[in-house]
């Protein structure tokens, strides 16, 4: 009897349901709902907002990537949950699970789907980077992608621990206030006078490293008026956390009025500033101090610093 049963194989149990279809039917409405919520409800409030072209494009990019990521994440979660419920160990069941053998169809589908997603994101990311003139990021001293026309040039000068802004098209005045006109292409020329900082104008979607002796160019186009928070995004020393200020995007008339008034108000200090340049070399000034030192005319520090703190070799 036993031999006959062994020859016939194990007794046939109830037919396995179509688990793939079940998982699909659970996943599909959840993924659809999640995508709709992300796109229409959450999307318009995603950072960094839509104050500028680069900010709006970044918001759009995050929406697209979220819409693509949510179904993948839900597929993992739904499949995990379904597995735990359906194939959990039941009381008294001490058998080993069935051996796992390769499934070419599943493997091929997984590789194909993930490849399509990654390649699509690569193409999408490249297009978004090129079509938005660098997506608000620093493009280095020789930007590849530039807006047409004549942008407003604002030089961002970082120094431990303060940002100042120079407007070369308005007499080269320098100020601690970042003010921009709405509806205007803006070219930020970002540099530093000491260590590496990072100019991060959050609501504008602009973020560019400020490197000493380097002009890092970033573009954006202002689209709405409002306040802008500027922060240093590169750990730069004791007061890095306090290196922030607030800028404004205002109407064109208000900007013109501010710019001309500030040019006049700052005229006296502007006359003492170095000529506008893409980068500055403050250590050359220190070289002058070195000359003082060698001539026995110590600079600040009263000569008590000694040779161990020689200029340019601090």
């Amino acid at each position, binding site marked *: 009897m036993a031999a006959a049963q062994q020859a016939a194989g194990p007794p046939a149990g109830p037919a396995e349901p179509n688990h793939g279809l079940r998982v699909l039917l659970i996943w599909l409405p959840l993924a659809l709902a999640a995508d709709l919520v992300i796109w229409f409800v959450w999307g318009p409030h995603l950072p960094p907002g839509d104050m500028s072209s680069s900010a709006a494009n970044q918001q759009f990019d995050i929406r697209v990537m979220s819409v693509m990521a949510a179904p993948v994440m839900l597929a993992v979660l739904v499949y995990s949950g379904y597995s735990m419920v359906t194939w959990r160990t039941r009381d008294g069941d001490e058998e080993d699970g069935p051996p796992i053998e390769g499934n070419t169809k599943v493997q091929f589908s997984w590789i194909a789907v993930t490849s399509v997603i990654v390649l699509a994101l690569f193409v999408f990311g490249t297009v978004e980077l090129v079509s938005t003139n660098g997506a608000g990021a620093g493009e280095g001293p020789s930007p590849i992608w530039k807006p047409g026309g004549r942008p407003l040039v604002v030089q961002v000068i970082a120094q431990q621990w303060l940002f100042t802004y120079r407007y070369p098209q308005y007499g080269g005045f320098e100020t601690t206030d970042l003010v921009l006109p709405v509806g205007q292409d803006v070219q930020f020329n970002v540099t530093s006078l000491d260590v590496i900082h990072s100019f991060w104008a959050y609501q504008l979607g602009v973020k560019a490293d400020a490197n000493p002796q380097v002009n890092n160019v970033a573009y954006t186009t202002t689209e709405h008026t409002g306040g802008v928070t500027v922060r240093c995004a590169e750990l730069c020393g004791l007061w890095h956390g306090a290196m922030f200020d607030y800028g404004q995007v205002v109407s064109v008339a208000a900007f013109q009025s501010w710019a001309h008034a500030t040019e006049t108000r700052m005229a006296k200090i502007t006359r003492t500033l170095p000529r506008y340049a893409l980068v500055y070399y403050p250590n050359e000034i220190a070289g002058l101090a070195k000359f003082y030192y060698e001539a026995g005319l110590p600079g*600040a520090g009263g000569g008590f610093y000694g040779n161990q703190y020689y200029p340019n070799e601090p």
Partner: protein
Amino acid sequence: MSVLARAVTLLVAFLAVVGGIFFVVVHILLAEPPTVDFTAGHVTGQPVNMTIMADPVNDVSNHPDWVSYFVRSPRTGKWVHTTIWQLPAHTRINVTAYQFDTCDPLRNQFNGRVSGTVGNVMSVSGEADGVNGKGISVVNSDTTCGVAHTFSVPELGINVPLGGETYTGKNECTQGPCAISTAHTTTTFSFITPAPGDYRWQCFIPCGLASVDGNGHAMSTIGFMTGYLDVVS
């Protein structure tokens, strides 16, 4: 070794480690210079007079060759080596700054302007007091020995370039706090304190040439060339 001896040894070792950590945290990581209080006895609406000095040396810290600030205590009249000053809110602060250090060029000449003070001006001893006695609003550190340090509170827009002492090699300050009889400049200015809060202040000149490639040493140490205004109601 008995169980008791091992337990005691373990306990002692544990307490030694905890004690060491406590010492490092309290005495090194959380250590900060004292606060000089200008609010005690202050009458609302009356100005506060504050006297500070920037010295090339000090004899009161473990960094005697670092540039640093002293402030005169309103209670004792003695100089205190600290950069944390407690001030009443919405009050005019009349500052007298003695500066014993020699000059250096600013990294950014923009910080040669006077701003955030009453009238956006300051007065410096021994110099023409600006146009028509209205006070000085700009100092060019590249062409004159005009600046040794700055007193700057970026959040409040305050920036005051403190005049540099012309080096002669005679009568220089060699002990801090410096004696008023040694060579120095005197800068006076006033500012209005804002609402209560902590406002950091710093110097924008690479003090002592030790910081040409970034602020280090005295420039990055509270109690020397940076600190904060503790504004209280």
